[in-house]
């Protein structure tokens, strides 16, 4: 089951630089939320704060609340490694581990953590994860081949399989289709619709048609100018954002005549 995320008055800093200012939003369980906005407006930065991945960058910090079912992810006793185990992430460029086979890539979350797993359980996990990412039929005969030998779209689905193999509650996707052709994009969009039943999904996209196709809610981020912080301008049901948005900037952006 997916979980719910509440974000309240979140400020995100890189060192002294305020990158994203005062974001509050509610992400419903088992929904797809799309984050749209121009480049550099802080969508990806915001997404990475949801599983504390932004902390990988030195000097990055946040103020405010990010709650998963009422638990603040930034409480001092929260372990960021455990947070990431429960909130999976798929990146812009497919990044399977080049030294691992397709099978080992799916099992990476288990194996890299030095957990023991019986062969039967491993086989079942590989099959269910790859089936969940719509990749099983294409790779079931070559599970021992390197993951980097797959096509870009297959690699991205392998990364999704790898992410869901650790059984997270929430799946974050940072422009998962921007490096893919339209057919692979379609495959991933279909997959997102299926994954919605089991996970809460937050997706960053530059493609507004994609946001309109896959998401239930859309949040529009914008930036006032270079050096200014990004802000959440508007968030609503996707059809509303694309037909009758409340803010002029949103209308300009979704209709393609921005700035």
């Amino acid at each position, binding site marked *: 089951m997916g979980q719910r995320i509440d974000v309240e008055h979140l400020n995100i800093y890189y060192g002294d630089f305020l990158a994203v200012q005062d974001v509050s939003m509610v992400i419903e369980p088992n929904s797809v939320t799309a984050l749209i906005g121009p480049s550099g407006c802080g969508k990806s930065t915001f997404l990475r704060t949801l599983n504390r991945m932004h902390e990988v960058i030195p000097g990055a910090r946040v103020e405010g609340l990010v709650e998963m079912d009422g638990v603040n992810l930034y409480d001092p006793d929260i372990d960021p490694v455990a947070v990431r185990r429960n909130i999976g*992430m798929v990146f812009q460029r497919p*990044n399977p581990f080049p030294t691992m086979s397709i099978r080992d890539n799916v099992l990476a979350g288990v194996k890299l*953590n030095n957990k023991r797993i019986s062969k039967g359980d491993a086989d079942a996990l590989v099959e269910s994860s790859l089936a969940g990412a719509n990749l099983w039929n294409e790779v079931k005969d070559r599970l021992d081949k390197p993951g980097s030998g797959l096509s870009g779209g297959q690699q991205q689905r392998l990364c999704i399989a790898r*992410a869901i193999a650790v059984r997270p509650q929430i799946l974050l996707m940072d422009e998962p289709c921007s490096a893919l052709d339209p057919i692979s994009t379609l495959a991933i969009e279909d997959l997102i619709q299926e994954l919605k039943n089991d996970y809460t999904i937050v997706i960053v996209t530059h493609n507004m048609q994609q946001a309109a196709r896959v998401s239930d809610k859309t949040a529009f981020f914008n930036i006032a100018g270079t050096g200014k912080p990004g802000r959440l301008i508007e968030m609503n049901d996707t059809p509303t954002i694309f037909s009758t948005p409340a803010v002029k900037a949103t209308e300009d952006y979704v209709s393609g005549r921005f700035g």
Partner: protein
Amino acid sequence: MTDVLDNTAVFTSDGLLAQGVVPEGAPLGPSSGKKNPLSAAEMRRLLTAADPRRKRTDLIMRALVIAAFVLAMAPLVSLLWTVISHGANRVFNRFPEFFHQSMRGVFGGMDAGGILHAIAGTVMITLFATLISVPIGMLTAIYLVEYGRGPLARATTFFVDVMTGIPSIVAGLFSFAVFSIVFGPGVRLGIAASAALSVLMIPVVVRSSEEMLRLVPNELREASYALGVSKWLTILKVVLRTSVAGLTTSVLLAIARVIGETAPIMITAGVADSLNWNPFSGRMMSLPVYIYRQYQMGVVPCRPDQVDCLADINFMRAWGAALTLVFIIMLLNALGRLVTRWFAPKLK
């Protein structure tokens, strides 16, 4: 809507303006529809227009590059040839005695003696030097790449750079001094030579491993973090595993850098004629020192009636040892290539 119309109008008037300003014959943008299409002959002239100056430069640079390559290769080939032609005689005619005898009880112009004790010393000293420097060097590199920020990392980098420039004889004197303080003056041990070589090896291991670790794409680290893998396991199982081929190369380069060292080993491990496998006790011979010693002894003054006296036996032994040393280094490099191939990420 008015917004958009305004924009269009401005754009159009801009275009019109530009069209008026552009002089005849200048390269024109899409705003000019007047230009006639080029004939095939004109197009051919445009596309084939030879630039004699560029061609000449190309030719000169090509010649320079090839000349530089030949110039670099010539001494290398000549060196290999000299070593093989001088050393092969002793190595092959005395095979395998040359490799399983030491110099114990060998004197004058005797047609005997081998390099086993020198091989043993070189192998043990280099092995222990590697065992000391690889963990230190690699952990330093991991610190610099994965953890190092601020003044400590900068200081580390600075001192590693300084260490790279330490003359090998100074490293040898340093190690000799340290071991003399601990074990009494004038002590000669294989492990003291290993310590001296480590001083030379560590900066090489740090710098080259650092380069290799920086080559690992950040995306792989992030992929691992996003799966809920801790930083240490990410370094161990993703970063090191991905760069293992490069790390092996850097270790082998560091070994090749020190295996031919003479001065620091002679100071610290001394000179010996008999076999000693134990680096923790007694003097040890090594191949470079052996070569130096044999060469130093020079021509043997043989009496004319002496039949079993070879006047240039010392030179023959020196060249034989030199050939062996070169062969060991080549073997290490070949091994490195194999390891690189085994561990390299596979695509198919």
